[in-house]
């Protein structure tokens, strides 16, 4: 009893002030790490939407006379854009391939995250809300997949289905849905018996309406954070599958494939492997950093400390 009283006192003394979006933005913009990750993600978004317009060269145009040029080599064309990241083993401009590769990576990451997120959340809510046998069945499946290496599972299915862009999206969704199911079920279970759900039920709301109008909004912020983390994980997954030869196929510019192609030249042309890997790393890191900021923002108690720490430092 005493410990409960103490906790309650604690939370009362640290009662969160109401925080506007303006304050949060100001805090984010003062954090060099957050600014950096937002910048990276903006650049990626531009690449996703307008790769053709932004990229200086055709990512598939080969020119064997220009193979493995180091970064910063001036263009062979009169007045052309210099190859600031160099060219690859077939003389294609590396920067242009990176920009188009961003499109592939993000499309796979977003596509499979949306698919697995929708399916996993739905199954998790159903399991948590209705309980019983269905819950047992779904959660056994979740446990099973959680403990089995997802890369091996993805490889097995791709082995049977054959590689390719669409298959990679489907397979990655298939091997990651359980992450959402676990979180959605846990939260649903915790909320199922809370007074506001009871109230909604006695006032005659249907199950579907309770789930949609009362449950889902409360699941939104943890699921959005998870979604952000999963995009990063899926981009890494796509890169690994493509690297191993079971994912996106040549000559499509996928970052994982580019590293694979460059690995034979690691001692003579370091830029072939370094830049695509750096692109994957920065993308995933930015998404992970964004998720950790989001987590701080969405939790009232953490938010307070986070705001104070950031705003005090540089008044």
């Amino acid at each position: 009893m005493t410990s409960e009283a103490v906790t309650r006192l604690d939370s009362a003394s640290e009662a969160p002030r109401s925080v506007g979006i303006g304050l949060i933005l100001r805090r984010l913009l003062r954090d060099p790490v957050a600014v950096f990750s937002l910048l990276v993600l903006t650049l990626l978004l531009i690449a996703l939407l307008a790769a053709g317009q932004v990229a200086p060269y055709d990512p598939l145009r080969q020119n064997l006379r220009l193979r493995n040029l180091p970064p910063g080599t001036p263009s062979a064309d009169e007045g052309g854009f210099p190859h600031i990241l160099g060219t690859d083993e077939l003389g294609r401009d590396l920067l242009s391939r990176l920009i188009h590769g961003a499109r592939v990576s993000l499309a796979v990451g977003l596509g499979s995250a949306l698919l697995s997120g929708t399916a996993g959340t739905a199954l998790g809510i159903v399991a948590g809300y209705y309980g019983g046998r269905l819950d047992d069945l779904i959660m056994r499946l979740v446990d099973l997949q959680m403990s089995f290496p997802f890369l091996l599972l993805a490889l097995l299915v791709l082995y049977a289905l054959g590689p390719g862009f669409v298959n990679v999206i489907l397979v990655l969704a298939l091997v990651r849905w359980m992450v959402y199911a676990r979180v959605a079920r846990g939260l649903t279970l915790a909320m199922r018996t809370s007074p506001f759900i009871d109230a909604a039920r006695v006032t005659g709301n249907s199950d579907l309406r309770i789930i949609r109008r009362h449950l889902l909004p409360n699941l939104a912020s943890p699921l959005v954070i998870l979604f952000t983390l999963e995009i990063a994980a899926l981009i890494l997954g796509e890169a690994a599958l493509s690297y191993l030869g079971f994912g996106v196929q040549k000559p499509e510019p996928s970052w994982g494939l580019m590293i694979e192609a460059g690995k034979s030249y690691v001692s003579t042309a370091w830029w072939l492997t370094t830049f695509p890997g750096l692109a994957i790393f920065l993308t995933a890191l930015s998404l992970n950093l964004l998720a950790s900021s989001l987590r701080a923002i969405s939790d009232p108690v953490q938010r307070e400390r986070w705001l104070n720490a950031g705003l005090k430092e540089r008044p």
Partner: protein
Amino acid sequence: MLAYLGRRLLQSVAVTFVVLSLVFVAGRILGDPVRLVVGIEASEERVQRVREQLNLNQPLGEQYATFIGDALSLQFGVSFWQKVPALPRVLERIPATLTLAAAALALALPLGITLGALSALRPWSRVDRITNVISLGGVSIVEFWLALMLILIFPVRLGWFKTSGYGGIEYFVLPALTLCYKPLGRIAQITRSALLDELAKPYVKAARARGLKERRVVFVHALKNAAVPVLTISGDELAALLNGAIIVETVFGWPGIGRLTIQALERRDLPMVEATVFVVAIFIIVTNLLVDMAYTWLNPRIRFSAAGDA
């Protein structure tokens, strides 16, 4: 306690069964296994021969029964690629993978816990932000790239260690380093959040009020309780480690299960694929059982409630 373990063991048997069925589905139903094996250009005669060899002329139900029966008696057939029984070839790869995984965990656990504790001591401070970037880096990096960068720096530029192969310490350092970064990052993240949760609890306040040194409060009292969530995720960590092993072993030519899996998949060697997946599944189940036992032993609340069930 015994009843609890018995129940877990039964579950594990069920899991093995599901995994075997999955392999069956992936190998025989989703794609035509014969085409997977012999390729598209093979002659009709060769297709027929392989079909018989694999028992693929029988109805699916019968094939499934034969497959499960063979798997339970540990018969996975002869590898197409190496022309010897598949299972022993898989089993002899276990020590290499285990050594690597053990080394990676041995590096990752102490480093990750220290890093996480450093963060939790002063949340949102500069130290916390730097360690946060380091640990998130671990979960943001693709292992094959890290491996290639390490190769680029050490063997290529400095002439240290070996780029690929199996043997003494000079072969061992780079794969172990590559493999440890991801678990390190995740352990640091979990330690930080578990420790922050613990530090907000009343007993910590009480310990401070009694005048205990802050270092003692954090590292002895709070960290001990924060160890439970860290252990809880080690089952998932193991799966992640095997994900990493597939890639790291392929890059460094390390003769473990991960590399064998890729080689078997590339060569469309169905018996070998089935044997590797089976071995990996058993391996994971056994380790998860061990983790469960450690967990039960560490946490009296579970220990006693499980005993109550019996």
